[in-house]
C-alpha cells in the first residue's frame, strides 16, 4: 500500500516516493525496501513499526541521509537528498537532522555538555554562544545539573536524555529516533517518550521513531507498519486506517 494517511493541509516535510533499496550479500541481491511511498507532515510524531528485517531502520537512514536509495526519491524539507554528494549530505545532516540512537552513542571521553556541543562545532557559533545553546538543550531534557558528568557516570535514561539534547541542540528540521527506548527499562523509557512527546507538542518538532514496542508507538500520533520492505498499514492514534 501507499501512505494515504498523511493528514495535513501543508506540503509534507518528508516525501518518499517509489523508494527502493537493495543490498548485495555474497552473490545474492536483497531487496530491503520495495517501491515504498511515505509522506510525513511537518510537526508529526510518526512511529515506524515492523518485524526485524522489514526495512524500518533502512528507511530511517534514507530519510536521514545516512544512506542513498537504489531507486526512487527522498525529499526532505524540499531537498532531493538522493542527488546530494557525500559532502553535501554531511552538511545537510548537520543542518536538518537530529539523530537519537538506541545505544545513545555518546562519546565516552567527553562530558555530557561536550557531547551536546558536538554538532555545534560544525557551526560558526562562538564559544559563548555554543555554551548557551548547550545549556538550553540540557535544560530542555532536565539534565542541567549533570552537564559536567561523563556518560559512564550517567544512568541509561540520563544518557539517552543527553543523546536527545545533542539531537535538538542545533534546532533541526527533523528528529530521527532509532529504537530510543530499546535499551531502557519501562520507567526510563516512559520518561524518554514523554520527553519526545513534549518536544513534538511544545516545540513542534517533527519526529520519526523506529520502534518494536507497541507501548512506545502508542505515544506517536501515527504509526506505520512495514513488512518486507513495503508499507502495510498506517494508523492514526485513536483510529484505524
Amino acid at each position: 500500500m501507499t501512505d494515504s494517511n498523511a493528514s495535513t493541509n501543508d506540503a509534507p516535510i518528508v516525501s518518499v516516493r517509489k523508494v527502493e533499496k537493495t543490498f548485495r550479500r555474497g552473490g545474492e541481491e536483497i531487496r530491503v525496501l520495495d517501491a515504498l511511498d511515505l509522506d510525513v507532515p511537518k510537526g508529526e510524531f510518526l512511529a515506524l513499526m515492523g518485524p526485524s528485517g522489514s526495512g524500518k531502520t533502512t528507511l530511517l537512514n534514507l530519510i536521514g541521509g545516512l544512506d542513498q536509495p537504489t531507486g526512487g526519491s527522498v525529499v526532505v524539507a524540499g531537498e532531493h537528498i538522493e542527488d546530494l554528494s557525500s559532502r553535501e549530505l554531511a552538511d545537510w545532516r548537520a543542518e536538518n537532522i537530529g539523530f537519537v540512537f538506541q545505544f545513545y552513542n555518546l562519546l565516552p571521553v567527553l562530558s555530557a555538555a561536550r557531547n551536546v556541543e558536538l554538532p555545534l562545532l560544525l557551526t560558526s557559533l562562538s564559544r559563548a554562544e555554543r555554551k548557551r545553546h548547550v545549556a538550553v538543550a540540557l535544560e530542555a531534557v532536565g539534565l542541567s545539573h549533570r552537564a559536567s558528568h561523563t556518560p559512564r557516570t550517567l544512568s541509561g535514561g540520563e544518557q539517552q536524555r543527553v543523546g536527545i539534547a545533542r539531537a535538538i541542540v542545533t534546532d533541526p528540521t527533523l528528529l530521527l529516533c532509532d529504537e530510543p527506548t530499546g535499551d531502557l527499562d519501562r520507567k526510563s523509557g516512559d520518561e524518554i517518550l514523554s520527553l519526545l512527546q513534549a518536544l513534538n507538542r511544545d516545540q513542534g518538532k517533527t519526529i520519526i521513531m523506529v520502534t518494536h514496542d507497541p507501548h512506545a508507538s502508542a505515544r506517536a500520533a501515527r504509526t506505520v507498519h512495514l513488512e518486507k520492505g513495503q508499507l502495510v498499514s498506517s494508523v492514526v492514534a485513536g483510529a484505524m486506517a
Partner: protein
Amino acid sequence: MKFLGLLWGNLMRRKLRTLLTVLSIFVAFFLFGLLGTIKEAFAAGVTVSDADRLVVRHRVSLFMLLPINYATRMRQIDGVEAIASWTWFGGVYKDDMKNFFPNMPVDPDALFDVHPEYVFTDADKDAWRTTRTGAVVGETLADRFGWKIGDRVPLKSPIWPKPDDSAWEFDIVAIYKGKKPTTDTSSFFFRYDYFDETRPNEKGKVGWYMVRVSDPDRAGDVAAAIDAEFANSSAETKAEPEAAFQQGFVEQIGSIGTILMSILSAVFFTIILVAGNTMAQAVRERTQEIGVLKAIGFTDARVLALVIAESCSVAILGGAAGLLSAWIIGQFGSPVPELLPVFYLPPSYLAVGAALILALGVAAGILPAIAAMRLHVAVALRRHGA
C-alpha cells in the same frame, strides 16, 4: 581550535597507550638530536673550516716538520695573504693523560691574522705580545680546569721535553671566545719564539702552516703554486683546502654520518610502525563513534583531518620533548671536551627534526585516517547494533 577538546579527549582515552607511544617517539627524537649533536661534533672541524684557508703540511706525513723559512717563500706567491705556523706540542697537564687537550706554539700576530674566529680584545693581544711565556686558552678549556688569567700552567710534552726534563710553564694572559657556536674554544696556544728557543732540537721547524688566500675561488691555484714552489726539495709540501684536510681526519674515524643515519633510519622506521599501529588501533575501536560524528554532520575530510591531527599531536608531544632534551644536553657542553670540543645541536637539526615530527605524524596517521574517512556511516553505526 574548537576541536581541541575532542582531540584531547581522544588522546586521553587510553592514557597508558598514549603515554607509551609518546615515550617511544620521545626516545627516537632524543636519539636523533643526540646523534646529530655527535655527528656535528665530529664534523665540526669541517664545518668551521674557512673556504679561504689552506693547510700546508709535509707531503709524506703530518708528523714530519717543515722549515720555518717556508713562510717567507710562501708570502711571495701570488694570492697568499697571511700565514700562521702550527706545531703539535702534545703537552699533558699535571702529567695525567686524562687532562689531554690540544696545545700548540704559534706566532700571536699570525694567529690573529689567519684565525679571526678566535676573539681577543686588544688588551689580550698586547698582553700576549709582551709576555714571552704567555699562553691564551679557549673559554671551554678554561672552564674545564677552572683557569683564570694569571694562572701558571705546567705542561709536560713527550714530544718536546725541556733540556732539563722539567715541565714547561706558561702564564695565562687571555681567555678567548669563539666567534660562532661552532668555533673550537678548547685549545691552548703559546708563543712559538719561546718554544723554539727552549727546545733542544728541531729548531727552526714547524708542524704545518695555515695559509689565508685573498680569493677563495683561486685557492686551488694557490695550493698548486705552493706545492710547486717546494717540489724536489728535502721537504715537499701538500697544500689543500682546510675543509678537505679536516674531512681527512673525520674519515679516519670512519663514516660517522653513515653509521648514525643508519641507526636513525632503523629507529624511525620502527617508530612509524609503532605509532601507526597505535593509531590504527585507536581508530578501529572508535568505529561507531566515527559513525556518530559523520551522522551529525562531520564530513569525510573533517574526520580524516581529526585522525591526522591526533596522530600529529602524539608525534609533536613526544618529538618536541625529545628534541628539546637533546638541545638542553648540548647547552651543558661536551661531556668529552678533549675528544669533541664543539658539542651542541645546530638549529638546522631542530628544523629537520620539526619536519620529521610532522612527517611521522602524517605517516603514522594517514592509513587509519583514510580508513576512517572511507567508513560508511550506516555501516559504522550498525557495529553496535545502532
